[in-house]
């Protein structure tokens, strides 16, 4: 068993993390999250044609009939003849707009020449409601985990774990802003899964910390933390590699529908391990010292 001083790297790690977090905040205010139809409200239609239809043909057909379109893009390879249409939200009845799309397409390309693969309509009210409930779910999850940790372990463990998972969530959102991938309900689910995973990782190590503490009263907390991290390192590496493996396979082979979910998962798994080792565990040392100083 190696003896690496992980806790000592806290300074370097925290600077790196701070840069990433500040970067995310800057990006959030400059570029902004690309909210999906779930949160933004609006109409999204995914349509597949039987025969070859070019993007420009489709665009002119829709513009000609004055469909209030805000974005039109082809999905995947162009030879698949699959397109995604986003329609403007503030112009009247969303239902009427989406019906208009299919009637225009029928008129222009003939009935049966296309298939509506997906049609999402989210009213502005529903969008706002989904946004608040997503935020609430994240907040409650974090709070519940914090309370559990404080009860099961010791209050000193809670701040580190929470800091670690907030760190993960924020940086993943940064990745979504940077790539301008759509931030949808699915991604909130991914964030919650990551929170679960990140805490899972942290808890395993805390568990070991507690065990060493009980077996060696009087041992310095710095030493305890490092020993716990070193002892569990082989497990940390093997577990994160297997989960990362599953996540990568799903990312590259799972198809477009779950692609973004596992994009978030993949980053989350890597961040989860990093934040456990370099943030959650070292922070308990500082929480302890801080509270002792003030006692």
């Amino acid at each position, binding site marked *: 068993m190696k003896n690496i001083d992980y806790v000592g790297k806290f300074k370097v790690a925290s600077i790196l993390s701070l840069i990433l977090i500040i970067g995310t905040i800057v990006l959030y205010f400059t570029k902004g999250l690309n909210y999906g139809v779930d949160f933004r409200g609006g109409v999204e239609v995914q349509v597949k044609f039987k025969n070859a239809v070019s993007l420009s043909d489709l665009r002119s057909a829709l513009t000609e009939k004055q469909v209030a379109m805000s974005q039109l893009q082809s999905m995947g390879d162009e030879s698949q003849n699959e397109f995604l249409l986003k329609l403007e939200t503030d112009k009247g009845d969303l239902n009427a707009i989406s019906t208009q799309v299919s009637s225009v397409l029928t008129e222009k390309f003939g009935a049966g020449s296309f298939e509506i693969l997906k049609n999402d309509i989210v009213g502005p009210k529903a969008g706002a409601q989904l946004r608040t409930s997503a935020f609430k779910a994240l907040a409650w999850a974090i709070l519940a985990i914090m309370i559990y*940790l404080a009860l099961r372990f010791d209050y000193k463990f809670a701040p580190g774990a929470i800091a670690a998972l907030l760190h993960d969530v924020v940086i993943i959102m940064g990745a979504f802003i940077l790539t301008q991938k759509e931030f949808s309900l699915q991604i909130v689910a991914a964030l919650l899964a990551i929170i679960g995973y990140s805490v899972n990782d942290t808890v395993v190590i805390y568990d070991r910390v507690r065990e060493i503490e009980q077996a060696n009263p009087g041992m310095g907390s710095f030493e305890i933390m490092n020993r716990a991290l070193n002892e569990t390192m082989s497990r940390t590496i093997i577990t994160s590699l297997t989960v990362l493996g599953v996540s990568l396979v799903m990312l590259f082979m799972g198809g477009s529908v779950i692609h973004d979910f596992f994009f978030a998962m993949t980053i989350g798994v890597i961040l989860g391990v990093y934040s456990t080792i370099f943030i959650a565990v070292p922070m308990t040392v500082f929480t302890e010292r801080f509270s002792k100083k003030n006692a």
Partner: protein
Amino acid sequence: MARGWWIRFSLLAALTVVALMSVTPTFLNLNEKSSFPMKSKINLGLDLQGGLYMVLGIDFNKVYRDEVIGNGRKMVNLLKEETIEAQIGDLITTDSQDPKQSVVLAKATDADRAKEVLSKYFGNTIRLTGDANGTLTYGLSRDFIKEVEDTALSKSIEVIRNRIDEFGVTEPEIVSQGTERIVVQLPGVKDIDRAKDLIGKTAKLEFKFVNDEFAASLPEWMDKIKKAGIVFNKGERFSDYVRKVNETLAADLPKGFEIAFSKESNKNTNEITTMDPYLVESATSLTGEELQEAFVRMDQEQNRPYVALEFKANGAKIFEEITGANIGKRLAIVLDGNVYSAPMVQGRIAGGSAQITLGTGDYNTVMSEARDLALVLRAGALPVELVFEEQRVVGPSLGADAIDKAQYASIVGAFLVLAFMCFYYKFSGVIATITIVLNVLFTISCLIFLGATLSLPGIAGIALTVGMAVDGNILIYERIREELRLGISPVEAVKVGFEKAFWAIADANITTALAGICLLNFGTGPVRGFAVTLLIGITTTVYTSYFVSKILFELYVGKGAKKSLSI
């Protein structure tokens, strides 16, 4: 082996058999008629099999308004019985969530007695909000508003269910979300537009007398509306337009009456071609609630379908009374706020039947309109107007493609993990593999037993559980290796390894479960699917990764004869 072990092993064996049986119909695609004892298959989410998902918001404002008007009329009648002369005053809708109706007393000195009478009989439903110079203003009481909302919600769900049942969808799901939303899920529905039409139609049928005394003023009023810049725009809700018209004319119209329109529209473009105004009573003489039956009939002379109505006993009585008392007046048949027809009452109509004639158009269109109308009238009117807040349609082929890819990736992912486990932990890895396969089996089996829905995020959830289940095994194995390095015997190492790893596994899974529960309370369709599989997965993970592993390990190390472990 010890007796305790056999008990645990038998339980595991029994669970495995039950689980295997429960997944058989799904994997062998057995149909209902097969002789296999278990029938239910896994419920696929809308994203996997296609269908319609809708969130409908309830617009309570109209309900409040109707209630307050209805109560106003009842109050005046009651006062008359108590020999207090009174008439209906203004309807105040400045706060659309709390409309108020005023009652004007003939003598201001009656005010105290009137208040006493009204609070005695209407105390539960109304509350006094104003009292000035013999004009009493009433709003609905808080309790009554709550009651109105609750009834409206549960009645709406019931009505939608009735309509869907007549429409014929297998396994529809219609549930409330909070106090003012309804979620409708219709898997496998093909005719989306018709389904939407049927659900969205309020089908509120009212019979109201037309006031023709002011017929001469109608054109003047309509001019005023146009001048005020109020026109009906395509895509707008017609009811919103009607509301604006009545608000603008509030000062001109005689008290207790309002404007309603009859309209005809082009069936292909849905554009309104003609629109005629009527001055009708605000309060309703008779509603669709008194309806017994509604069916399509043919007018032989004109070869046109119409909808025949039959009233319940009480409705028939009311119909007879009101037609008898209003001979020579026109009676408007108002559906969802629009006048369908307004025939003249020639005499008292006994027998309790009436008919709705439909607009012009080609035979097939009118026929299908008549059929749908009869259907919604039969299934009952929605007590409220519903607003489509969210709607997701998934075509069946997107689902098929998605499920193929996700399934394939899950299998590859799982295979890689299991191969790695066998390589890294040798024979113990094989045990881990068995537990993980059992884990997936139990998860799917639980989904089937609970009737839960497997959606695409659900498949992702299962994949994630596999990852976490592996972690459980790794925790134990690493611990056993550590103990072995300390030089204790394999039997001891296994025992201590399991003991020490237990709380790490439990704590880790409980915290993940906490995130899962929050996700479940989140309450939106597709994401809930993920939460359900995650929570089930966590439960089965703890059982298989820890308890099943332990059973198998105890079998493997035996009674202590083993000198070394393959780990």
